[in-house]
């Protein structure tokens, strides 16, 4: 038995890969569930019911999917250009804390139509600064951005921790480490009354479409793909490599920062260190599951959200820890990588 490269990469196979990957991940998680003695079908039924069973459940799932779409896009645009941004988590937090810092008082007097866009830009700018710093180190000193962006996550979270214990601490929070709240004028409008679903979902979906068009139809998109696939050939064709990478870094860091801003303005209203249950890292999985396609990111983010929300319901109903959702989502990254491998290679006897 040997593995050999495919000479053709059938399009159907590439579309099929995520489906197979998710089914395989569910099968492996199913084996883990079976080990606890609970019926696998029962557990998965509970997950589906928990995530999609009621109108409220659906809105909760979509609320959870919102930041995941944005962090997924952040990873997808960077990876497309072979810029390995592993720092979505840190950029998310910097975006969030920037919004809290500016939104608590500075924009408190503004009308919502002005305050919200200003704060979204502030959040995006926060993420951008962090990502462009990492890229600058790569361009200037050849420091691998995988390392810098990953480590900056810890720097960013400790920085946020410092701010909410110190200068930005909410004096009304009974000693809990949380930031001052953003003024109410900048809260994102609810899409459905008496749910938490907010306008951030629309922003995320619109941005996914915008990023898709940017990559498919613009000079910048073509250049960033060219630079990502073969920087040397792109350079030969006159693609300004450094400038293109800086633009990609701004876009990627900006999207991750925006995710933090949207989560603060849409759901929480203030910042704590548990604002993100790993949205930045999940974004990497989502981007890979989507095969870096911005529109696919929406679907992949919804899948991850179903798992996360559904697992909470399941753990209440059948007593399996909700960590199984993390396991399933993580497994789906591994199975997707295997599936992608088999779109490029085949096994022959």
């Amino acid at each position: 038995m040997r593995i050999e490269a495919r000479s053709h990469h059938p399009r159907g196979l590439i579309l099929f890969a995520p489906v197979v990957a998710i089914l395989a991940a569910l099968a492996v998680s199913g084996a883990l569930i079976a080990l606890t003695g609970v019926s696998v079908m029962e557990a998965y039924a509970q997950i589906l019911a928990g995530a999609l069973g009621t109108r409220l459940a659906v809105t909760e799932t979509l609320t959870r999917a919102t930041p995941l779409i944005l962090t997924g896009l952040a990873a997808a645009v960077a990876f497309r250009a072979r810029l390995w941004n592993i720092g979505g988590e840190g950029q998310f937090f910097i975006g969030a804390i920037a919004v809290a810092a500016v939104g608590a008082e500075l924009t408190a007097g503004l009308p919502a139509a002005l305050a919200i866009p200003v704060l979204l830009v502030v959040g995006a700018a926060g993420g951008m600064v962090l990502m462009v710093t990492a890229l600058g180190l790569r361009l200037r000193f050849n420091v691998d951005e995988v390392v810098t962006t990953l480590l900056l996550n810890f720097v960013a979270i400790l920085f946020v921790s410092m701010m909410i214990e110190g200068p930005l601490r909410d004096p009304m929070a009974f000693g809990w480490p949380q930031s001052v709240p953003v003024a109410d004028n900048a809260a994102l409008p609810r899409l459905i009354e008496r749910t938490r679903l907010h306008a951030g979902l629309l922003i995320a979906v619109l941005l996914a479409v915008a990023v898709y068009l940017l990559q498919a139809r613009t000079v910048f998109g073509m250049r960033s793909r060219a630079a990502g696939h073969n920087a040397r050939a792109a350079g030969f064709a006159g693609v300004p490599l450094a400038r293109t990478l800086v633009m990609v870094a701004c876009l990627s860091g900006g999207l991750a920062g925006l995710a933090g801003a949207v989560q603060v303005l849409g759901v929480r209203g203030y910042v704590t260190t548990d604002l993100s249950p790993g949205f930045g890292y999940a974004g990497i999985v989502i981007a890979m599951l989507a095969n870096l396609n911005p529109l696919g990111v929406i679907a992949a983010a919804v899948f991850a959200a179903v798992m996360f929300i559904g697992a909470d319901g399941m753990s209440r109903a059948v007593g399996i820890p909700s960590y199984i959702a993390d396991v399933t989502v993580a497994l789906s990254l591994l199975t997707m990588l295997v599936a992608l491998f088999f779109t490029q290679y085949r096994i022959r006897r």
Partner: protein
Amino acid sequence: MTETVLRLSGISKRFGPVIANEAISLELRRGELLALLGENGAGKTTLMSILFGHYTADEGEIEVAGRPLPPGRPRAAIDAGIGMVHQHFSLADNLTVLENVMTGTEPPWRLRANRSAARRKLLAIAERFGLRVDPGRRVGDLSVGEQQRVEILKALYNDARVLILDEPTAVLTEQEAERLYATLRMMAREGLSLIFISHKLREVMAAADRIVVLRGGRSVAERLPADTSRSELAELMVGRRIARPVREAASPGAPVIAAHGVSVRHREGTDLEGIDFTVRAGETLGIVGVAGNGQTALARLASGLLAPEAGTLTILGRRVRQPDVAALVRAGVGRIPEDRNREGVIGELALWENAVLERIETERFSRRGIVDRGAARRFTQEIIDRFDVRGGGPDHRTSLLSGGNMQKLILGRSLIDGPSLLIAAQPTRGLDEGAIAAIHTRLLAARAEGAAVLLISEDLDEVIALADRVQAIAGGRLSPSIDGAAADARRLGLMMAGDWSAAGAAVADAD
């Protein structure tokens, strides 16, 4: 001398629908130097990879010294005394010669390598075959010729009795190549058996005891050098007569590109030191040289990727101070890069994207940052039609094209608008005879239409066929130019070695 040391019988190998080898049988006798001649894609390398265990044959058997060789196991091939010297060396630059030679010969769980014994063995082998090297030197500091010697020593160190060399002279000068063949003949006299893969008729005729010609995966002929001729071998290799186009007299116009005392620092290779050259409209200047003597820097300089550090470079009347690809392309400079896979095209992108990438910012293909895909596809279709690019339409992935068709795509996008200047770096490297003839025809046609052509090539025959004037590049410096009519292989060989006065080079016309 007639003992058969290696027998391949009925070897067949298919890759999907492609037949790489079909029922090839081959015998190698003790003390014999056998040439395996064929074009790219004739199946030479596949056959040798099967022998060495990198691939498993679909059918057929291999016997070494009368005993069958288990398929698909390089270790078994090494143990049976087969050594392989690859075209691209498999040496670790940061290890010494001795360490490279010892790699893989010692059990991995041994904590201390027995260096002194290994050193003695290596020096004994080197002495016996006249392959002198210093075992303590770092391989990265050696010249290409010396590195090849290390590769050969590595095989001999593993007690190889059958040595296979894949295109051994591709990276050598004429003089180094001659020395290599002298060594190989001596090794044959010492009782080793050797197979070398080549597509160069001249050296096959000069060096081999026996020649086996492969074509389309089959063994089509077997000849002794005394009983054949270069033209017969060429025809056997290609399967038909292919006439390369003939150059007509030039009528040069005004200078299009001129360099005076240009020096360039190039991080990845040889620098250029004070070079002078001029190419006029309607004229081809050929730059010959052995790989690695500054061709890369020269091609990148003329292609807008490097700027002079000293001296003046004028292209189409404008002095070049900054690297600016877009400006050159807009001004009408067509560029064929020396490595089409790494520089010329991006395999993952569609044909149309590769066709327009270098001029994507012109108004013709984008407006306010939005790509005009219709215009780009029409442009690509026109290239496909006019330059006979086969293997896919504008929306196909470029990696699906063959090397020759990729090169036609690159040629097409560079020539379709009638450039004033064409930079052609190694335009036919690795292509088969048919594609070479097609590309030569295009280059001559561009010159006839008034383009200035700067041809940088390692292929003497190509330069002799196409160039009106020739300069040699050696160690980052350019020789004075000689007339194309006076350029023959002997004189160019001397010029490439840096011996410009002995080559009787005329003084370059100063302008």
